[in-house]
Each structure stands twice: as structure tokens, then as C-alpha cells.
């Protein structure tokens, strides 16, 4: 049997960002009809490589050939013309345009007075039918679910006659069921002769969808395997560079409640409330995990416990004490450690020094100010202690915070909030975008705080993270929360159904538990 023709050849791609080598002479080939999984931890260089391929970045060394022709670097237009389509992790659709307009925009000549919408629509519907990508062409993108938006993105690439499709972490925003349907689509595409590269750091997806898997670690291509000829253990070791030891939280007896929400509703100003009659209790020595597809109320819940927004009805209590409309400073004073979802935008002031960020939640403390004058010496000394205790890798307390890596920024936030023995920890997406070492550090610290008597509210879109850490799991859907289900009594399949809103299965889970 002759192997199918090569559609894409990357040779010796190297890309440096300052001192960091994001891609180190990577060579890859992709064949017609093949699904290649690009597997690697966050920061391994997967997205950089695909951005070079699609022309967002220019490689320092190396070349790319598409369908036998050299691909000019740095030009997404050339990549599109060569038949390469990319579906980004963060969708690039305009909310205020219809699906059809989003897909057709940019394909028409500027000089044509009128676009031929009927032909465009026919082409779109034909593609949708052929590949089982059900869409509503005239609906506004803003009204679509995440899964539908992704289908629209894929159709956008197909509409431009893509023969190679790149998907960057396509399942990050999908329920397990939606992921399965995506993989089904991928099979139809390859049957039609397309080639697909999908980027992932999740093992089970690699086995569910790929023919070949390429493993990246620290910017290098460490191995390429036929998916059928490898197994999880081998891939995990290749990916991480050492055998993985998942954290094994020792079971602890939960103590008294530290956070109690009763019937909390937060209105959104239009349509469905952000939180809809939420009841939740987090106890000492307990990690409660909130699972759910993003946009189902997790952000509002995090903002509520951070003190940024307040309930429109219902009550919130900390350590049994009802609190009214507490502001962030009040929440800190009451012993809530808050790890924000977006450490760049909400956690840290990048333009300020490390020490200035470390005292940001308690600069009124007499330890750090006298008569309104900052005690810079004391603040720096304190910062040195925290940097040491939380292993923050930085040149010193005076370093500008935006120069730190994501992992070290997160350690900075952990140091700022956990150094004071909190009663409740709100951890919102605490490991998003971190490398494997930083992830295990964060997990270790959360488990440590739990053993020391803190209650932890863990909000994560990464189901594996919740399964690894949580004592109890609740699922968020449309602003509502299921009762807390004890870990071990609920299967991944059941969680997936709950995430998709099939709450009718709740009684059977609760009865079994």
C-alpha cells in the first residue's frame, strides 16, 4: 500500500521570543486524510508552531511547504490561499453579525457593489450537509451556543476551501458529548480527503480522534507515534518527561461550614439571571469543585465570593455569619483568599513591582504604612519572605510583575492570599495556562491549605482537575448548581450529561449516593 500524498511539510522550524526558545527545529509531515494530534503541556510550543504555520508569527529558521509549494512566511492570506484553515481557541467571530455574514466576510471583493448572498448561503448549506455541521445561517453569532460557534468557525475555514484544518484546543469549551460530535465531524472531513491537525493536552482526545500523534515538550518535538501503536503511559511520560504522579488527596473529615449560599440570585440585566437560586455549602477541610462548560454562571459565582458583585436576592454567609454587600477589601478581612480567573487582567498590576502587588490586598495594614506613608523597607522585606516561601522565580521584589512567567505570577497571587491562613479559598481556574510543574505546585498548595483547615471552592473548566482534587462536585448549568455530589459516586459520563443540562438524571445519582 502506498502512503497518501504529503500535504504539509514543516522543516526545522525554530522560533525564539527573547531568551525563550518556543520552537526548537521542529520537523513534521502531514498526509492527506490524516488526523495529527499535537500533544503537549501548556507552554510546550504547540500554539506557537501552529501560529507560524498560519502566518501569525514568522519563524526565525526553517521553512514550510504546502501541497509541494513553499509557503511564504508571515502571511495568513497566503496560508488561506494555500488551503490552510485555522480554528482558534478563542473564536474570531463577530457577535453582531449572522453566521452567514461571519463566514462570507472577507471572501468578497471590496469593489463589488452587492454580495451574492443566495449563492453564499447555498454553498454554506451544502458544506454543512456534507460534513454534518448543523448551523442556522441567519442567526446572530451572539445567540449561538459555544458548540455552534465552533461549528461556524470550522465552516468558515471550509467555506474558504481549506484542505488542511488546524484546530487549537477545540474541546476546551465543549461538554464531553459535544466533543464526541466534533470528533465525528473530523472523521467525515478526513474521509473527504482533508487533513487535520488538532492541538490538545488531553490524552483521551488523542486516542478518540487521531491517527498520528506528535508530542512536544519544552519547544522540542520529542516523538511521533502512530496512535494505534502507543498507549497513555508512554505518551504521558513523553509529554511530561517523567512519570506522572497524580495528587492523592487523603480523605479528611469536613468541619463546620465556612461558606453558605442560600437561594442566591444575581440578575444579568437582560434575560436569564447569571446565578439562579444557588444553594451551596463549603466546609472546612473540604474542596468543592464547580464543573461546567464556561459561561454557565461560574464567573458570577467567583465575582460574588470575591466581593465584586452582590446577590439580588438570597443570602451569603461566611463562617456562619451573614454578610451583606461586602466589598473585596471586606472579604479579604474576613479571611477569604481569592485566586482570580484572569491573573493578568484582574489579579495583578503588570506595570507595578512585585512588592507592590504583594501588598495590594493589605496596604492599609500598619505593617506597611504609617500616616499614609508607605513603609517601603518593611514591604520589600515582606515581599522577600513571600517570594522565598512560595518559590516565586523573579529577580527580586523590585522586578516589574509583567516580566514574570504565568506560573510565577500565579505563585505571586498564591503568596499574596495564602500567606495569611485563610478560612475560605476561592480558586477560579487556578491552573489555566500553567505548565505541568506549576500546576502540581498550585494543587499541592490547595491541598495543604485544605489540610490546614481551609475550605476550598474550586471553579474549573478542566474536569480532570476537579476529579483530581475535589471532595464534592457540583455542576453549573444556566446559572444553577446541582447539589454537591460526593466524589467517586458520579461518573464522567454523568457529569457530561449534567454539564449539558440533562438534570433529569440527578435523582438516580443522588439515590445511588
Amino acid at each position, binding site marked *: 500500500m502506498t502512503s497518501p500524498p504529503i500535504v504539509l511539510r514543516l522543516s526545522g522550524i525554530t522560533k525564539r521570543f527573547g531568551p525563550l526558545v518556543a520552537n526548537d527545529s521542529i520537523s513534521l509531515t502531514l498526509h492527506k486524510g490524516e488526523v495529527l494530534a499535537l500533544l503537549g503541556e501548556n507552554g510546550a510550543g504547540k500554539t506557537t508552531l501552529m501560529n507560524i504555520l498560519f502566518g501569525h508569527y514568522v519563524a526565525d529558521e526553517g521553512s514550510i511547504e504546502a501541497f509541494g509549494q513553499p509557503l511564504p512566511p508571515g502571511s495568513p492570506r497566503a496560508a488561506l490561499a494555500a488551503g490552510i484553515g485555522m480554528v482558534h481557541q478563542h473564536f474570531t467571530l463577530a457577535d453582531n453579525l449572522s453566521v452567514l455574514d461571519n463566514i462570507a466576510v472577507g471572501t468578497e471583493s471590496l469593489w463589488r457593489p452587492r454580495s451574492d448572498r443566495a449563492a453564499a448561503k447555498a454553498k454554506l448549506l451544502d458544506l454543512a450537509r456534507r460534513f454534518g455541521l448543523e448551523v442556522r445561517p441567519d442567526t446572530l453569532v451572539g445567540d449561538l451556543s459555544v458548540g455552534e460557534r465552533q461549528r461556524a468557525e470550522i465552516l468558515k475555514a471550509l467555506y474558504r476551501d481549506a484542505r488542511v484544518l488546524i484546530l487549537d484546543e477545540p474541546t476546551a469549551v465543549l461538554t464531553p458529548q459535544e466533543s464526541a460530535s466534533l470528533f465525528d465531524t473530523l472523521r467525515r472531513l478526513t474521509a473527504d480527503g482533508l487533513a487535520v491537525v488538532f492541538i490538545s493536552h488531553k490524552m483521551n482526545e488523542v486516542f478518540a480522534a487521531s491517527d498520528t500523534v506528535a508530542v512536544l515538550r519544552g519547544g522540542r518535538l520529542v516523538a511521533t507515534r502512530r496512535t494505534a501503536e502507543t498507549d497513555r503511559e508512554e505518551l504521558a511520560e513523553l509529554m511530561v518527561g517523567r512519570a506522572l504522579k497524580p495528587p492523592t488527596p487523603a480523605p479528611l473529615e469536613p468541619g463546620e461550614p465556612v461558606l453558605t449560599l442560600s437561594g442566591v440570585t444575581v440578575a444579568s440585566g437582560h434575560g436569564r439571571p447569571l446565578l439562579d437560586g444557588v444553594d451551596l455549602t463549603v466546609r472546612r477541610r473540604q474542596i468543592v469543585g464547580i464543573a461546567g462548560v464556561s459561561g454557565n454562571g461560574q464567573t458570577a459565582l467567583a465575582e460574588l465570593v470575591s466581593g465584586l458583585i452582590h446577590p439580588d436576592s438570597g443570602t451569603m454567609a461566611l463562617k456562619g455569619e451573614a454578610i451583606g454587600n461586602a466589598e473585596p477589601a471586606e*472579604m479579604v478581612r474576613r479571611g477569604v483568599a481569592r485566586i482570580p480567573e484572569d491573573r493578568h487582567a484582574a489579579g495583578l498590576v503588570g*506595570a507595578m513591582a512585585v512588592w507592590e502587588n504583594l501588598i495590594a490586598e493589605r496596604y492599609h495594614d500598619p505593617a506597611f504604612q504609617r500616616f499614609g506613608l508607605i513603609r517601603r523597607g518593611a514591604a520589600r522585606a515582606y515581599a522577600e519572605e513571600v517570594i522565598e516561601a512560595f518559590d516565586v522565580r523573579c529577580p527580586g521584589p523590585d522586578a516589574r510583575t509583567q516580566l514574570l512567567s504565568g506560573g510565577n505570577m500565579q505563585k505571586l497571587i498564591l503568596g499574596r492570599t495564602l500567606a495569611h491562613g485563610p478560612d475560605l479559598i476561592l480558586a477560579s481556574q487556578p491552573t489555566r495556562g500553567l505548565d505541568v510543574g506549576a500546576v502540581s505546585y498550585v494543587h499541592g498548595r490547595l491541598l495543604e491549605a485544605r489540610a490546614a483547615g481551609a475550605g476550598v471552592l474550586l471553579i474549573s473548566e478542566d474536569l480532570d482537575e476537579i476529579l483530581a482534587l475535589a471532595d464534592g462536585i457540583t455542576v453549573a448549568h444556566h446559572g444553577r448548581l446541582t447539589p454537591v455530589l460526593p466524589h467517586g459516586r458520579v461518573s464522567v459520563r454523568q457529569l457530561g450529561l449534567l454539564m449539558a443540562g440533562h438534570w433529569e438524571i440527578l435523582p438516580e445519582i443522588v439515590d445511588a449516593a
Partner: protein
Amino acid sequence: MRLEPREHTPLAARLLAPVAAVVAALALCALLVAWTGAPVLRAYGLLLEGAAGSRFALTETLTRATPLILTGLAAAVAFRAKLWNIGAEGQLYMGALAAVVLGGGMLDLPAWLLLPTVMIAGAAAGGATLLGPAVLKVRFGVDEVVTTLLLNFIVLLLVSMLLEGALKDPMGMGWPQSAPVVEAAELPKLVERTRLHTGLLVALGLSALLWLIDTRTIWGYENRAVGANPRAAAFAGMPVTRVMLRTALLSGGLAGLAGVIEVCGLKGYLTLDLSPGFGYSGIVVAMLAQLHPVGVVGAAVFIAGIFVGADAMSRAMPVPNYIADVLVATSLLCMLVAGLLTRYRLRRG
């Protein structure tokens, strides 16, 4: 060509950027000077001489720089908090109004008491003028660029109305001008037989004070955090709204003080041409200084020198003194490019 962010901006680059911008602006404007047929080097030589070539020139430049330091600080303070105060011109006139009302004989106080009273009142008037737009911004998200800019015209019309009516000087021979402030409300001269007055010391002192507040106090700490990342500041528990309103009072107050000092130090009474656009020039001053309170002093002296020097030059050569406006505007544009280049580097391909 593409821009890549720099990980680190060396201090030398930050200091060099305004110098490079000014040199580039002078080079560009040389083309315009050459167009008039005047010899470029001699023109710039006369400009420099007119700005700093004699005791008289130097004191004139510093006199001109005094209000520019204050409006420059007003812009710098506001812009650092991302409060785009374009209304320093109007705030300046409100301060001046307060000065001629209170200092025009209404209060009978000794100089040591009257002067501070008038200054505080003028600053309060300027601050109050910006407070309105700031409240609208934090409460309802109203764009303060529009509101502060349009308030300038409202204030000017108000001043015009008062100068034709209630505040019109009965001894003014019909000119639309206010009665002069009493002697106790006049700022003492700094150098005898020149126009330079002690308002310069007030401006320099405020520049130093603002720098100390910025770096040494929790006020300044909050201001910097809110300016750089209001979301993170709010998350950490800082009173973002209060910081914004505080900044508005401070910024408007500084502009109002500029008006008081122009009236009490230089003009003595209020007319509609008290300020040749000091409020707007303050924006250029602040940008050239990269919003640094101490840098504002240098930038203000530079811009004042351009205006004063261009006047002198235009008397000796067929180059109109409008060249000063062009030079200042070009400097601002060059500074924006230079600032970009300190934060990003250009890469080919």
C-alpha cells in the same frame, strides 16, 4: 514590518525619547522654515536666543512656563489615572474667575491670608468643574473627553457673560475685563524689574510634592494601581471610584490654580485672552514628560521657550510666529512615536 513588545525599557531610552522627539520635530519644521525663504540655522539660532539668550529672555520663558507647569501637571495626574481631562482650559478660567471675585476686594484680609484663600478657592473651582464630568464617567460611563472638552466653551461663554455684566470693571473704559485684584492678592515678584513672579515657586513645589505623593504614599500607590489596571485594583479591594474622583479634584484643582496664578502673578485682572491655550498646551507638556510630575517642569520650560523664542524670531525674520504652534504639535506627534518605540521594537518581516 511589525512591532514586538520589549521586555524591558532601559532608563536611558526613556530619558532619550523626548530629546529625540524634539530633535525630529525641529528637523521636520526646518522644512517649513526653509519654505519661507529664511536661513534655517539662523532662524533656530534667533529662536534659541529669544528663549534663553538674555536675562530678559530667560525670565520671560519661565514666566510663560509657570502656568504650563500647572496645566501640565493637571493633565499628567489625570492621564495617569486614564481620566482624559481635555478641559484644563475651562478649569483654568474657573480658577481665574474665583481669583478676581474673591481677590477683587470682596475679602479684606492681609496678604498672607488672602493669597492662600484665593488659591484654594481657585483650585476648588477648577476641581469642581472637573468633578461633574468625572461623576458622570464613573456613574454612567459618559465619555469625559466629550464632556470636558465641551465644558471649555461653556466656561468661556460664562466668563464672557460675566465680563460684559456683573464683573465688568466700571473703570475699564468699556473693555470686557474685570476689576483688578487688590494689592494684597498679588503674588510678589521673583526677580525685580521682570515679569517673573513667585507663582513659579508654587508650581515647582507642587511638582515635587506630587512626585513624593506618587512614590511614597498609599494615595499615590492607589492612584498608580488604578491607573495601570483598574480591574486588578478593584479586585484587590482598592476604592476605584474614590480614586477617580480624587484624581479629578486634583487635576481640575491644578488647572484652576494655573488660572489664579496667571491673574494674581501676571495680569492682575481677568480678560477673555488670559490664556493662549495653556490648558491644551498642558496636554502636550504632560505627554512630552511621559506623565512624570518632575519631567513636566522640563517639558513646560521647553514649550514656553519655543513660544517666547518664536515671537522674538518672527520680529527679526519673515517667519511667522505660528511656527511655534507647528513645532509644539510636531513635537507631540514625534513624542507619541518615540514613546511607542520605547515600548516596542521594530522588526522586519
